């Protein structure tokens, strides 16, 4: 969909190296590739190796994971939570993104700042903020005690609190994806739909939604994949009974020194993430994920 300058039609100065030979541009990415190789690929390879060699060679850890109700339940919980968070960010993010796309430039910029401000705040800080807000001495407990009386509700350490915090942390990804798609809709298309007699609901259903669909899929994929690996937030404010896979991996290392088992769990998590991205790539193309 995007206009990509081809070497033939683009600036002559940039077209030349491509014509001379294809290796030179690679020099520019060499430092990055070296960095990624040293600090990402090699350790990742070690994790892969450890998952089948520690403490003894074989696929024992994977068999154990596949047959152990505990790990399967944690994996299922992780996927269910990621799906729930993705859907909630969509439901909450769509009206916001739509308002941003509709608003005048100044208002849109202000809304963008508000969304990205929360994006730039460390998510550890945002998690602690939720601990304060939802805590027994926090504003919600105070309001409920003042208005309703009685004991303050127990909001922290529940599925509700961790889901709320993850939705808050991930919603900027959704809003930005949706906003990118909604901005691309030609206002003229909407005007012509209306002038042909479509009521606003029909315009939304038959024009806006289909055109925004790529943004919806992008946002869902991004949020889902990011949520799969969430660690700190569920550990700090979630219910101990609803653990996510990353927390269990951390525990396997810290508590049991079970590097092999933890590696195997990481490989399962990585593979599930790759499968989601792979499906996305086949249907839509991975290069479009970031808008």
């Amino acid at each position, binding site marked *: 969909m995007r206009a990509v300058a081809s070497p033939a039609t683009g600036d002559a100065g940039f077209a030349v190296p491509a014509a001379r030979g294809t290796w030179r541009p690679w020099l520019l990415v060499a430092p990055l590739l070296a960095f990624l190789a040293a600090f990402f690929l090699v350790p990742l390879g070690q994790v892969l190796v450890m998952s089948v060699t520690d403490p003894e060679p074989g696929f024992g850890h994977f068999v154990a994971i596949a047959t152990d109700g505990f790990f399967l339940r944690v994996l299922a919980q992780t996927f269910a939570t990621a799906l729930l968070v993705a859907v909630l960010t969509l439901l909450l993010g769509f009206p916001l993104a739509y308002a941003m796309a509709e608003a005048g430039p100044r208002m849109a910029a202000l809304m963008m700042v508000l969304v990205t401000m929360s994006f730039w705040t460390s998510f550890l800080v945002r998690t602690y903020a939720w601990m304060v807000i939802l*805590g*027994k001495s926090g504003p919600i407990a105070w309001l409920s005690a003042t208005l309703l009386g009685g004991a303050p509700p127990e909001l*922290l*350490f529940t599925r509700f609190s961790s889901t709320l915090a993850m939705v808050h942390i991930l919603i900027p990804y959704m809003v930005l994806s949706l906003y990118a798609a909604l901005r691309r809709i030609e206002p003229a298309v909407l005007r012509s739909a209306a002038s042909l007699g479509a009521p606003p609901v029909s315009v939304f259903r038959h024009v806006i939604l289909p055109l925004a669909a790529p943004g919806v899929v992008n946002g869902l994929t991004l949020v889902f994949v990011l949520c799969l690996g969430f660690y700190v937030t569920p550990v700090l404010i979630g219910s*101990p*009974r609803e*653990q996510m896979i990353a927390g269990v991996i951390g*525990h396997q290392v*810290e508590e049991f*020194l079970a590097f092999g088992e933890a590696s195997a769990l990481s490989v399962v998590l990585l593979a599930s993430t790759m499968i989601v991205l792979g499906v996305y790539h086949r249907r839509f193309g991975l290069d479009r994920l970031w808008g």
Partner: protein
Amino acid sequence: MERTTASATRLTRRAAFSLGGGLALSIPAFRRLRAAETLFVNTWGGPWERAAAKHLFEPFTRETGADIRPVSPVSFAKLAAQVRSGAYEFDVTTLGLAELVRAHRANLLESLDSLKDRVNWRGGLYLNGVASHAFATVLAWNQQKYGDAPRTWKDFWDLARFPGSRCLQRYAARVLPIALAGDGVPTDKLYPLDIERAFRALDRIKPSLRVWWTQGQQSAQLLRDGEVDMIGIWHGRVIELMDDNKPVTMTWEGGQIDRAYWVVARGTPRRDLARRFVEAAVQPERLAGFCKEALYGPLNPNSFAYVSEADAVRMPTSPQNYPKVFEQDIENFGGDVTQVTSRFERWVGA
């Protein structure tokens, strides 16, 4: 302006400790240090590190000229990983008894037999660890909720008399003995643990266990904010809150002692210096100073010669408190610690 980076960091650290005269002392000391060795000591950061720096690190530096670089956070996994990889982020660390047993079995520790003659009190040298200080996991509660009423772990389990939320550390080896005490087992008859009975006891209060704490800071915050009403918590954290006039209190009755042992990571190139440090760290007067400030109980009995009555009542190993508390017995645990921990983790998550 000509100062090297090393001297700049040193001065910053001195300044951070805000020691009167520290600056003046550090400059001649630093000259001596330029060519000297550096020892990397794993610390818990925060007040622990400040107390260790003042009472253990700085006297050692004055005595030997070796610089000490603190490394945080404490991580048992890192100890294992660095012995595997041969890249040492720290040379010396402290371990609890359960970790000490595991580390010893996994052959992660340098031998400390050479300290045998100088670390000569009972239980001082154990499995290549030198017993240094102890803390207790005690019963503490929100006074606004329960007043001064709860007395023992049985009250923690008595949801009819003391309704409210509970919290314990997510740490099987500490929780299971407490569960048995809560179920009525006398503290001198806890070991070997009746694991099944402990889990049955935990089942009874599971709905009230809203959250499990994993970090000391978190446990203090949960109690202070009234997020939980009754908690099994390290005594130092409660004393801090009480010194701060927060409406919380604790009992030594049924407190569970955890010993901290200094150990040296196996294979570190700085092992001789590390051994010297461990020996110096349990010297009676220095250890007493460290324990007073960091709210521990010294395990070197000679340290109590340097502890006042007012400080001794705040220590789990003092003559007045020690009869009320009990010691962990990992050797006589009653099951395989790793298996029990794994079962416990699954139980928590179910």
